[in-house]
């Protein structure tokens, strides 16, 4: 039973049903039903042609559902009367599905759920577990999302930027249950990169690969966070780093810079340093300048202040921080870091404790409390 294969086939099969005349919502439901049947039947009776099997079963499910729904009777006749195009002609259905599932009319949470189901081939239960909500809630979120996009024509060209936003969210947010959301986001972005030659798709893929490469070093066995400077770099996945750097370099040569390429470039410079001390902070500041120019994001400015502190000295870093709104998320943590490096442990300890109180996650709160505790212990002795 090859679940990975099943999941890869999901968007293709939805696309084929849509080409045959099913509307997206009905096609998507029919394919989910077919996936559930595949999970039940395949272990004992594996098909010789998995894709053909899925198309046949999903089409039958679609017709059954259409027949059961008397209000749809007229369209069903219409559908059955149409010639079925050869699935071999279909080229870009998967790409269209990405656009539809990330349609701007959807909220980010809905777009994420719909993408994971229709493009990723995950079940509603798996998606619900990954976001810690009841299965019924996730089922409702998905069916509402499908209603929202029901009027969108399937072959309408979409905006790659909205798709990237959704994939970025999948990579960056969500709990790690049975489903590895970061790994799933990489799979979906890789698949997208193979279909759409776009610099920012490559940029996002590179960004994900470079951050994923550090995952084994990012937490200790007890679950506590390890800051970048303290990570055991021998744990970094050099194969993922090499791939990320290759993907990024190919994108950068096309000379159409975007925010994901700039972020990936920063990650690549960190990956390139064998020790924290070897980090090329001057280049990193230059990339942050690009990022600020591209996005005007206050979060980018905050991270830039750290890089400036490393490149040009801590006073320069604190000066870069001074112009920023203290209400920014993680502002106190950055300020604490710079003050400690500047030789002011009293202020740093106070700011770390303040940062811990406003931390958005438990691991971050524990980490920041620990930093405050470390400095306070030093100050006592």
């Amino acid at each position, binding site marked *: 039973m090859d679940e990975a294969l099943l999941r890869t086939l999901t968007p293709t099969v939805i696309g084929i049903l849509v080409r045959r005349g099913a509307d997206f919502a009905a096609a998507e439901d029919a394919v989910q039903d077919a996936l559930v049947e595949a999970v039940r039947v395949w272990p004992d009776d594996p098909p010789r042609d998995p894709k053909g099997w899925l198309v046949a079963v999903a089409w039958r499910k679609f017709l059954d559902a259409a027949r059961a729904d008397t209000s749809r009777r007229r369209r069903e006749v219409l559908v059955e009367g149409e010639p079925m195009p050869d699935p071999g002609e279909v080229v870009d259905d998967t790409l269209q599905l990405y656009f539809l599932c990330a349609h701007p009319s959807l909220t980010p949470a809905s777009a994420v759920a719909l993408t994971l189901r229709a493009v990723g081939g995950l079940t509603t239960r798996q998606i619900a577990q990954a976001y810690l909500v009841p299965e019924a809630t996730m089922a409702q979120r998905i069916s509402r999302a499908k209603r929202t996009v029901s009027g969108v024509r399937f072959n309408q060209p979409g905006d790659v930027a909205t798709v990237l936003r959704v994939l970025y969210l999948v990579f960056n947010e969500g709990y790690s249950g049975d489903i590895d959301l970061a790994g799933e986001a990489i799979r979906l972005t890789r698949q997208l990169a193979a279909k759409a030659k776009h610099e920012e798709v490559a940029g996002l893929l590179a960004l994900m690969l470079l951050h994923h490469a550090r995952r084994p070093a990012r937490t200790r066995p*007890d*679950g*506590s966070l390890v800051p970048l400077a303290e990570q055991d770099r021998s744990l970094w996945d050099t194969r993922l780093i090499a791939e990320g750097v290759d993907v990024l370099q190919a994108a950068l040569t096309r000379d159409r810079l975007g925010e994901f390429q700039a972020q990936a470039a920063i990650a690549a410079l960190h990956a390139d340093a064998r020790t924290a001390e070897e980090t090329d902070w001057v280049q990193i500041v230059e990339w942050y300048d690009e990022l600020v120019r591209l996005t005007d994001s206050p979060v980018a400015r905050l991270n830039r202040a750290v890089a400036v502190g490393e490149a040009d000295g801590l006073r320069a870093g604190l000066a870069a921080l001074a112009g920023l709104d203290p209400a920014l998320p993680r502002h106190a943590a950055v300020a604490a870091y710079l003050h400690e490096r500047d030789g002011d442990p009293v202020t740093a*300890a106070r700011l*770390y*404790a303040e940062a*811990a*109180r*406003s*931390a*958005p996650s*438990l691991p971050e*709160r*524990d980490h920041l*409390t*620990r930093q*405050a*505790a*470390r400095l*306070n*212990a030093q100050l006592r002795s």
Partner: protein
Amino acid sequence: MAKYLLLKHYRGAPASVNDVPMDQWTPEELSAHVQYMEDFAARLEGTGEFVDSQALSPEGTFVRYDGEGRSPVTDGPFAETKDLIAGWMVIDVETYERALELAGELSAAPGAGGKPIHEWLEVRPFLAAPPTITE
């Protein structure tokens, strides 16, 4: 089985016996505390008594309806609010005595000096579903 909420307060509960703010502990004491909490939850999962555990940010806002067509009114956060809930654990246990026993264990989590915090936790029974047979 009956469900109980074990409530932990930032503020509002009687003072703990070992009452030292966390940023004044040593990093090792913090690690030991986090480990204790994780082991406790894992053990309750093992006995089939764990339901849920969540932590809350200290920041909160009061909100109320302000009439047709108007945005809700918000107020706070109130620095003087008596109770401030920090988080909870929900357990599903055979008896009230078992709920108290577990709350006692949770309250013994190590703090400053590696000694138990003796933190006051509040145990609140959930209102259950109505029984089918009532006579």
